[in-house]
């Protein structure tokens, strides 16, 4: 073999045309195999389905929502005071929590669920002087630009932006709920009638509405923490940081502004991480869409195997605007943390009811226009606490 390798002369000769043609056919065939199958309904909207290896389908058959609720109940049970420090220290050792940062004495946390939703001491999370900061403690799973309305979950696997943030025309069970303090009878029909899918929503989100009544303004102030003076000062700070006029002109184009692009970033919170999330920038939340979905694990292991993971799971899409136009933030639940809390939305109830009552892709919507009469939404400063994830 050694002699043959060294002594056999190499002779080059042209391939016949037929071989070249076969090669091209093979390349085309492989390309077709690599294309993703996308299921669409009668109206051409993508139907999100459970796709992945057999392990994913086995998990899909489990009653994950019930498991999540039982998990939440077990972890809400009050622990004896003497067992708390040792128990939480063991938990912290397993999951890598820094106990020096926690706000309260370990004995004051009544249950593991209470400890899981712990607050941190002031000053433990300095805020960087950039336009966009991390909203949570965790690991950056993926980030990039959104092309063709699709967000990349992992390399080569995408999901629809429309499915993530909501398409009104797909489901008929969409229900509109007013902000907690707003009277349902005062809803302006036109305000809701012209919302038609995410593209139009972008237009709607970037515009302003002039239908607030004085009574709504009063209600909004009551719903805020602090005095009226504090609320006005807070709103003015957000408006100042956004670099925008208090009243924005309605934007007519459906697409992003010239010179702009759509970006995404996914941050995964591991079980030991601080589980409250904060505002990543100065922005105004105009509405939230609550999607009741499944509660698969969202660990990197799962994200690599289950396509459409982030549009299958229960989530709360907070949509609004910032200095450069559209801004959206979507906390996505998981089996162990099915409950999502939003501090300024007392009506929101997650991980309740049956998944069967809520067809995939449909959502419940609430608008926050009553929260601030100046900015027409819920204003948030950079790094301001917004809410968090609770066990179960």
């Amino acid at each position, binding site marked *: 073999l050694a002699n043959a390798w060294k002594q056999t002369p190499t002779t080059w000769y042209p391939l016949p045309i037929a071989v070249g043609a076969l090669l091209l056919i093979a390349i085309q065939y492989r390309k077709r195999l690599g294309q993703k199958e996308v299921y669409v309904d009668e109206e051409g909207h993508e139907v999100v389905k459970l796709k992945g290896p057999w392990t994913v389908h086995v998990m899909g058959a489990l009653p994950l929502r019930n498991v999540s609720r039982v998990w939440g109940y077990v972890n809400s049970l009050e622990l004896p005071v003497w067992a708390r420090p040792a128990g939480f220290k063991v938990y912290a050792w397993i999951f890598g929590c820094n106990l020096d940062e926690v706000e309260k004495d370990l004995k004051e946390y009544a249950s593991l669920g209470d400890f899981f939703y712990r607050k941190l001491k002031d000053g433990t999370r300095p805020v960087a002087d950039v336009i966009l900061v*991390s909203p949570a403690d965790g690991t950056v799973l*993926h980030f990039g630009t959104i092309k063709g309305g699709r967000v990349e979950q992992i390399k080569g696997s995408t999901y629809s932006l429309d499915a993530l943030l909501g398409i009104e025309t797909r489901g008929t069970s969409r229900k509109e709920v007013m902000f907690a303090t707003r009277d349902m009878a005062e809803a302006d029909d036109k305000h809701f009638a012209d919302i038609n899918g995410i593209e139009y929503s972008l237009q709607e989100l970037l515009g302003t509405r002039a239908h607030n009544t004085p009574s709504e303004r009063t209600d909004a102030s009551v719903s805020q923490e602090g005095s009226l003076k504090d609320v006005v000062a807070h709103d003015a700070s957000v408006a100042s940081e956004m670099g925008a006029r208090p009243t924005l002109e309605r934007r007519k184009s459906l697409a992003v502004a010239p010179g702009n692009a759509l970006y995404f970033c996914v941050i995964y919170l591991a079980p030991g991480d601080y589980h409250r999330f904060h505002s990543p920038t100065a922005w105004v939340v105009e509405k939230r869409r609550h999607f009741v979905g499944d509660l698969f694990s969202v660990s990197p292991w799962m994200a690599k195997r289950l396509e459409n993971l982030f549009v299958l799971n229960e989530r709360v899409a907070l949509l609004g605007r910032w200095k450069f136009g559209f801004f959206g933030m979507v906390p996505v639940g998981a089996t162990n943390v099915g409950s999502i809390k939003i501090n300024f939305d007392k009506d929101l109830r997650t991980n309740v009811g049956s998944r069967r009552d809520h067809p995939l892709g449909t959502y419940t919507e609430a608008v926050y226009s009553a929260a601030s009469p100046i900015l027409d939404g819920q204003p948030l400063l950079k790094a301001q606490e917004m809410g968090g994830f609770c066990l179960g």
Partner: protein
Amino acid sequence: STVVLVFEAPQDFQFLVKDGQKVRVGQPLGD
């Protein structure tokens, strides 16, 4: 649990993180 951010920004917007990087609240994400 996961937080997904989707936003419009100028084309010269740059992320200041890497895939797999650990981040904390308030740390730079992009500018």
